[in-house]
C-alpha cells in the first residue's frame, strides 16, 4: 500500500436501500488532501450509512467512490484499509482485554513490520507525539478512560497507514478540555496532508474547525462542499433543518392546564456499563398537557424512559405520580397508578412477536390481574382483542394471528390500544412514530391528543422535530443526559435546534 498522501476523494451518486427503505439517495461529496470536511445531518439522515459504504461495511447499490481519479471497489473492511481509509467509530472497536499495542497488531494484517510488540508500541508513540497527544501503548484498553481510548483508536488507525480518517462524533463524549485537545490534533493531522471527515452535530465545530461542510437530510445531499469560512452557525442550522414550515399545532383542549401529574426531580441514572446516562433531570407534567423532549438520539432518552418506568434503577432523585411517591415502586405498582409506556423499539421492547395478537393486547391487563386473579379466559381475551382490533382499526390482525406479521403502523396501533387504556394517566411515548407512514403517524398523534383531552398527560420523547413541534405544549431539550433548556410549544425550529446542537 502506498504511503503517499492522497490527493482527492470523490463520492458520487451513492444509493443504498434496505428492503423497502431508501437510506441514501444520490449522496456524495469531495475531500481533498489537507482538508477537514464536516459531515452534518440529523439522526437517520444517512451519515452513518454513507460512511459504512466508504469503510466497506456495506456495498452501494449505485454510485461510485473515486480515489485520486481511480474508481475503487470497496466490498469489505479490509478493502477500505488497503486504500488508506480508516474510521474511528463512536462505539469503539477496541478489544478491551488487549493493550493498545496489541490492538494495533491485531489489525496490522497488511503491515508485517507492525506485528512485533515493540515496533507497534513505538509506532503508536511516534504517531501520538506528532499529534500532540499522550498515549501509553502498553496500557490495557479496559483501563483507559473514554478520551484515552479514543486517542488510542485514532493513533491505531493512523499507524495502520490511514490517509483518510473518518471521525464519528468524536467530541460527543468528551469534556470541553478534551474536545479542544482533540480538535487541535485533528488540525495537525490535516496539516500533514491527511484528509479528515468529521461527522458532527456541533455547529461550533463545523464553523471553527472544518474547511468545508456537506449536509445530509433524509439520505440526500442538500448542500455539499460548502466552504465554512463564509458561513455562520445560523445559516448552517437553517440548511440542516430545512424549511420546516410551522406545522399545524393542535393546542390542548383542556384549558388551563391542571394539577401536576408527573413530577421528577434530580433524576440521575446510569447505563449498564456504569456511564452516566441521565444527569440531574427535572420534569413536570400537568394534566392535559403534552411535554415534548427534543434531542438527538443516544443522549440518555431511553434510559430516562426506563428510569421513569422503573425498569432502570435510579442513582438518585425523586419521582411522583398523581401525588404518590413512586421513586421506589416496582413496574407493576407504577402501572397501577396509571403510568404507561410506549417504547421506541416496539419489536424488542413492546411486543412479544411470536405470540398471538390477543396475547399482546391483553398483556398488561393480565399482568395487573384485571383479567382474572388466577384464571383467565382465552375466549374472553379473544373477544376483547376482536373488539380492540375493530375499535382501533388494526388491519391485518386477527386475535389468533401472529403479531410478527403486522405492519409497522398496525403494530403500533396495537401497542397504543393496549397502553392508552381507560386507566392510563400518564403515557411515556418514546419515538412513537418511528418508521411509520404518514397516515399511521396521524393516528398515533390523535390517540395521544385524545388521552390529554380526558385529563391525562403525555411525555413525548422524539428525534422528529416536526412531531415535537406539532404536539407539544411545552418543549424540553435533552443533550448528553441533561435538560439543556425549556421552550414554549410555539418555539421555532431554529430556536429548538440551537439548544439541541449548540451544546457545550
Amino acid at each position, binding site marked *: 500500500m502506498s504511503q503517499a498522501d492522497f490527493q482527492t476523494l470523490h463520492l458520487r451518486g451513492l444509493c443504498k436501500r434496505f428492503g423497502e427503505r431508501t437510506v441514501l439517495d444520490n449522496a456524495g461529496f469531495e475531500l481533498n488532501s489537507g482538508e477537514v470536511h464536516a459531515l452534518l445531518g440529523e439522526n437517520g439522515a444517512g451519515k452513518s450509512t454513507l460512511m459504512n459504504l466508504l469503510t466497506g461495511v456495506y*456495498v*452501494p447499490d449505485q454510485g*461510485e467512490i473515486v480515489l485520486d481519479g481511480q*474508481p*475503487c*471497489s470497496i*466490498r469489505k473492511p479490509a478493502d477500505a484499509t488497503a486504500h488508506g481509509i480508516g474510521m474511528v467509530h463512536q462505539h469503539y472497536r477496541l478489544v478491551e482485554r488487549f493493550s493498545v499495542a496489541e490492538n494495533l497488531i491485531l489489525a496490522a494484517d497488511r503491515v508485517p513490520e507492525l506485528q512485533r510488540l515493540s515496533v507497534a508500541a513505538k509506532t503508536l508513540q511516534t504517531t501520538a507525539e506528532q499529534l500532540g497527544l499522550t498515549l501509553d501503548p502498553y496500557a490495557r484498553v479496559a483501563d483507559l478512560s473514554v478520551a484515552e481510548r479514543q486517542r488510542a483508536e485514532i493513533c491505531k488507525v493512523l499507524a495502520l497507514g490511514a490517509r483518510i480518517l473518518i471521525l464519528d462524533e468524536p467530541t460527543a463524549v468528551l469534556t470541553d478540555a478534551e474536545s479542544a485537545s482533540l480538535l487541535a490534533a485533528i488540525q495537525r493531522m490535516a496539516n500533514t496532508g491527511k484528509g479528515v471527515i468529521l461527522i458532527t452535530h456541533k455547529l461550533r465545530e463545523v464553523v471553527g474547525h472544518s474547511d468545508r461542510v456537506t449536509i445530509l437530510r433524509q439520505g440526500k445531499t442538500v448542500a455539499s462542499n460548502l466552504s465554512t469560512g463564509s458561513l455562520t452557525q445560523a445559516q448552517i442550522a437553517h440548511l440542516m433543518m430545512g424549511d420546516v414550515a410551522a406545522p399545524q399545532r393542535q393546542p390542548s383542549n383542556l384549558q388551563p392546564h391542571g394539577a401536576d401529574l408527573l413530577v421528577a426531580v434530580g433524576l440521575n441514572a446510569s447505563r449498564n456499563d456504569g456511564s452516566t446516562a441521565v444527569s440531574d433531570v427535572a420534569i413536570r407534567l400537568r394534566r392535559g398537557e403534552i411535554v415534548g423532549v427534543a434531542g438527538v438520539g443516544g443522549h440518555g432518552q431511553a434510559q430516562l424512559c426506563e428510569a421513569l*418506568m422503573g*425498569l432502570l434503577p435510579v442513582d438518585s432523585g425523586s419521582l411522583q405520580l398523581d401525588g404518590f411517591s413512586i421513586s421506589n415502586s*416496582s*413496574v*407493576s405498582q*407504577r*402501572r*397501577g397508578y396509571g403510568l404507561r*409506556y410506549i*417504547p421506541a423499539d416496539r419489536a*424488542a*421492547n*413492546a*411486543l*412479544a*412477536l*411470536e*405470540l398471538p395478537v390477543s*396475547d399482546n393486547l*391483553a*398483556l*398488561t391487563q*393480565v*399482568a*395487573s*390481574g384485571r*383479567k*382474572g*386473579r*388466577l*384464571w*383467565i*379466559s*382465552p375466549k374472553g381475551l379473544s373477544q376483547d382483542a376482536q373488539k380492540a382490533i375493530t375499535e382501533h382499526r388494526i388491519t391485518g390482525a386477527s386475535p389468533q394471528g*401472529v403479531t*410478527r*406479521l403486522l405492519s409497522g403502523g398496525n403494530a403500533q396501533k396495537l401497542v397504543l390500544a393496549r397502553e392508552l387504556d381507560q386507566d392510563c394517566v400518564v403515557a411515556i411515548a418514546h419515538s412513537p412514530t418511528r418508521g411509520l407512514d404518514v397516515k399511521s403517524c396521524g393516528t398515533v398523534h390523535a390517540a395521544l391528543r385524545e388521552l390529554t383531552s380526558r385529563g391525562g398527560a403525555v411525555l413525548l420523547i422524539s428525534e422528529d422535530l416536526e412531531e415535537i413541534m406539532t404536539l407539544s405544549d411545552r418543549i424540553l431539550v435533552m443533550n448528553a443526559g441533561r435538560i439543556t433548556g425549556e421552550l414554549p410549544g410555539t418555539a421555532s425550529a431554529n430556536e429548538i435546534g440551537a439548544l439541541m446542537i449548540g451544546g457545550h
Partner: protein
Amino acid sequence: MAVQFALQRRLDISFLRSSLTFAAGLLLGGVLCVALLVQAGVPADMLFEDLVWQVFFQTDGLAQTLTLSIPLILAGLSAALALRVKFWNIGIEGQLWLGAIAAMAVSINGIGGESYRWVLMLLAAMAGGAVWIAIPLWLKERFHASELVVTLLLTNVAYQLLQHLLFGVWRDPTQSFPISPAITASERLTKLGFGNLHTGLFVSIGMVLLVMWIMERSRFGFQSRVLGANRRVAEASGIAVGTTLVVMVLLSGAMAGLAGGLLVAGTEYRLTQHLGWNMTFSGIVIAFIARFRPFWVLPVAVVLAGVYNAGASLKVFYGLTEATVLLMQGIVLLSLLWCQFMAAFRIDRRKEVTV
C-alpha cells in the same frame, strides 16, 4: 461481473417456511437413521416391521411402548418447562433419581397410611425433583453460576447418592444385585391389564393436561409465555419475572422427579441402578421436536418410546446397543438444527459494483 454471496437474516419467517423446513429436518434425520440401521445389518424390509409395526400396532409391543412413554412424557415436559424460560436443565436424570429416592424413602419408612401411601410417594417424588433443581437455581440467582454445568454435575452426585443407598442401608439382603427391597403391594400402581402398563400412564397424561391447562388458562401460564417470548416486554408490563422463573423451574424439577417416582411405583417396584437411561437428552429432544408445547410432548414422547422399544428388540436380534437409540436421537436433532438454517437465513446474491 462477479457474483458474491452474503448471508442475510430473515426478518419475517412465514409459518409455511418454518413448517416445511421442520418437516425436512425430520425427514432428513429419519432417512439417515434408516441408512444407519441398514448399514448395521438390519434388513431394509424388516425396518418397517421392527420400527413401526411391532411397537405401535402389535398388542404386546404397543403396551411396552406406552409403558416406556410414561417417564419420557414427563421428561419431555420437564425439559419444555425449563427451556421455555431459558433455564438450561441438563440434569433431568438427577432430578429423576432424587424423585425415585424420595418415593422409596416414603415406602421404606412406612410414612402415612397404607391405602394412600402411593400418593405420598408420588408427591415426595415431585418434591425430591424440585429440591434437586432448586440447588442450581439458587446458585444461579445468588452466584451467577451457570446452571448448565451445575445441573449436570448434580446428576453425577445424585447417582452417587443412589449407589450409596443401594449398596448400603437400602440394600435388599436377599438379592445378589444392588437393589432395594420391593415396595409393598398396596404401594404399587395398579396394572391396567395391558402388558406392563399401569395407572402411571394416567398420571403422566394428567400432568400434561394439567400443565396445558395452566399454560393456557391461568394468569401464571400467560405470564410465563410472555417471559419465554420476550423478557424485556414481560418486565415492562409489570410481570414478576423472578417469581415466574422460579415457579417454572421448580415445576420442571418436579416433573422429572415424578418420572422417577412413577418408575419406582409402577414399573420396577424397587430402586435400581438402571432407572432413567439418558432421560436428560431424550427429554430435551422431545421438547425440541414438540416446539416446547406441552400438548405435542405427548405424541412425540410416545413415538420416541416406540423407538426405544424397537431398540430393545434390535439389540436382541441384531446385536445393536442402547447407544444406537442415542445416536439416532442425536442425528435427528442435528438434522433439525441444520434445516432450521434454511428458515432463518437467506442467501443474497449480490452483484459487484461495476468498476
